């Protein structure tokens, strides 16, 4: 694994999947492709791990699935966000934004806060 490719924080994959479905129903392969493109291939998923995550989301009724036909006429299982899934995504997005902002602030600090308060 190359140093620039980050390991997926556990649970993040769920949010990514939900987000990927915001624009409409997709099958599993399309979801991987979308995540790969949207994250500029930084977040690399071992594609197989996507499926257990999808199924888990389906069991939790955050997404629902139906069989349909793919672009090249193959039978594919399409996933779609449920209302519950949308709500979940909104909430997770908020949490994630706050989290990443906090981490970003810390990492971009230029001098020691201890020294600052000691003045």
């Amino acid at each position, binding site marked *: 694994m190359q140093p620039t490719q980050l390991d997926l924080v556990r649970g993040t994959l769920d949010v990514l999947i939900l987000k990927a479905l915001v624009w409409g129903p997709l099958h599993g392969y399309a979801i*991987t492709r979308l995540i790969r493109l949207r994250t500029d291939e930084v977040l690399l998923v071992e594609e197989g791990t996507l499926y257990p995550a999808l199924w888990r989301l389906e069991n939790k009724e955050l997404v629902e699935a139906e069989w349909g036909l793919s672009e090249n006429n193959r039978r594919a299982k399409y996933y779609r966000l449920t209302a519950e899934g949308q709500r979940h995504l909104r909430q997770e997005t908020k949490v994630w934004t706050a989290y990443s902002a906090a981490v970003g602030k810390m990492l971009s600090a230029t001098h020691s806060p201890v020294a600052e308060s000691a003045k």
Partner: protein
Amino acid sequence: MTRTPIWRRYARLFGADPAADVADEVRFHLDAHVDELVKRGWEPEAARREAEQRFGNVGAVQQTGVRMRQVHARTQAQTDRWEGYLQDLLFAFRTLRRDRSFSIITILVLGLGIAGNTTVFSVVNAMLLRPLPFADPEELAWLASGRRTNPKGTSDLSNSTYTVAAYEEIQRRNQSFRSLTTYNPFLSESDFTLTGRGEPQPMAGVMVAVNFFQTLGVRPARGRLFGAEESGTGGRPAVLLTHDTWRRLFAADPGIIGTGITLGSQTMTVVGVLPKTFDFGAVFAPGLRIDVFVPAPLDQLRDSGNTLALVGRLKPGVSIKQAQAEADILLPAIHAAHQDWWGDYTSTISSLRDHVSGKLRQSLLVLWAAVGLMLLIVGVNLSNLVMARAAARSSEFAMRIALGAGRWRVLRQLLVESLVLSVGGAVVGIGIAYAVTSSLAHQTAITLPLLSQIRIDGAALAWTLLLAAIAAVVLGLAPGLGISTTELQATLKNTGAGPSGAGKRERTLATLVVSQVAMTCVLLIAAGLLLRSFQKVLDVDLGFEPSRAAVMRVEYNDGGSHERRATTLQDILSRITSLPGIETAGIADMLPLGRNRSWGLGAIGTEAKQGDNVTPIVRVVTPGYLGAMGIRLAGGRDFSWRDGPSNEPVVVLNQAAARRLWPGQDPVGRLALLNGNLKTTIIGVVADVRDHSLELAPGPEMYLSAAQTYPDGAELVVRTALPAAVISKSIMTVLRELNPSQPAVALRPIQQIVDQAVSPRRFVMALVASFAGFGLLLASLGVYGVISYAVSRRTREIGLRMALGATAGQVQLSVIGNALRLAAIGVGFGVVGALAAAKGIESLLFATNPTDPVVFGGIVLLLGAVALMAGYLPASRASRVHPVTALRSY
């Protein structure tokens, strides 16, 4: 929004196959990836390798997938099932609301059926099934002196009780009982008068041994029970209050404990309050409300003869039989050691439960059977209703099956509908049963034991639920069976009016109606026999005239002297008889059908067999009592005030006593020995008075003069044409003038005493009769229903016949004939059933033959008349069929 509708359609179409689903999905992913790579110029082989490598462990993912999909499929199926039930339920509500009259009738009929059953179950439960309301009640036993020879069991108290000495000896020497206790069962409505707290209040009190409550395992709600220091002469006077009395007369004041209250002439310390659950009357004295308990002064009772009723708690592991075996040896031994004892205390030991309600077992089982039969009639009636409804809906069912609903799915829908109806019926039923049982539990006019313990408890609710569940299944399946035999196409084509199916249905309906009539016939005949017995009991010659007579308890103070009592009583009676409206008045210490005591009496004289001793019931009375009660004088004279303390002792016998002592002779003027020591002259003979109950022929009775013997209480009997409410006040005024502490007791019509005595019989009779009446209503509706159906189905045929010249009368006759034929078949079966049932209730009948022709004939006629009426309405409708209209509908 419905959940996963497409998925569901898919799953239904192919069946759930999680493994294939997962494999398909993974294969699609790999194929798609390969396609994309190939498009970008990869070699297919390399592309596939790349795709698989990027995917990771294909096998592991698939395995996880299958497991997860299975879980998902299961929860999904469960959700679907619940949603299905919810749908069924909503649909059932919709259908039932549409068919409002059907639903209401069904729920009402079922509700009444369930109410009857739940009520009777509660009664049976309280009286026979539920343990007595004491600690470990199965250990409690009742000891009755004397071998019980009469299976009905008399309530001759003197002959089933013990002396103080016998009690003490048995207590000391027995090995069977952990604890033996006693109370004085010679109870009356009001033995004590509470004074010093406003108007003097009558209080019913019971004298109990100090270990009475401990033996029963009753703990006080407040304060304590009696202690050893409260027993015997010189013991501190103490009293225990019932919970009800404490609330009613002392405003539930906890401070009353430890303070003194004045009962009669004595001040007693309230030591405690008994728990709310303890109801002495319910167990030991049906119909009586007891207010207070005092320690029995055993020393004072020592010379009073048989005064104690014995209750014991068996040692662990000792059975009633073993206790009886011990008693059979012990009591003769005790008797042998005490030659001076007057009686032989050979005892019959039974469980307390048997003593309390054993005699009722038969009546209660009959009630239970009757109400069960009523439930069957209800069931048949409702089956009829739902089948008729199913017939009307058969095209709906056929349509749904044709559209792909499974038979099970349709059946399930029907079951859910009937479940809704049954739950409705159960709710109505429990509501009614609750009202009935709580009013029964507060009845004092019915002298049944444990009546106050009747309530709807868990067992009764479980019973109701069971009945409702059975009803749901029966009501749901009855029309369901109809569907499975329905031929779909035929039904769809001719909308259910086809001749063959309808004919079969009519036959089924007719069979059900016949069985309904038969069961109703059994119930009616049983009710008729009980009613006739009841009438016979009411027609019994009581020996006294209850009408226009009323009674009030009187309190006076004679200071223990015969002279003073004689003048006091004479004073009271002369004041009372001078009141306007009072025809005559007299006083007795005990009234018939109430408490009683008996003393020994032996004939003296050469003609009589020496030593021929009888123990007649004793009533100590004043002059005027016989007249006020309406007891007929058969010979000799009534008492007069001249039969005083200084004159020769006199006695009046009843005819039974006269026959026993001087068979075939006139006893007036002869001498007899009272209690083995007092020479008395027989001055008169009166009619036999029913003493224990209306149903037992009276035994020997005798009357003594209140001026010569110690009476046990005083009941003032007046004969008046005025209503009790009017006369009561003026009597009370007179009594209060003579004795300011006269308690505020009510003037009770003597008829009330008689009514109470027959109340158990009336209770059973009234219940069976109401069940039978309800059955009759349902059966007549059944006959009406099936005949109406037949008429509506034959409209065309009838029209044709009228067109061909049949008159309206002929049409009517044939329709009514049909109704009568159904009724006749039902009655035929019913009479056979009733003959068997009558044998079963024979022991409950009084002076009525179980094959009483009046009852059987009357019921057959009644059912015939009802069938006639039920047939008449459809018949007159049929005769109004216009031939042209009927024929045009071809």
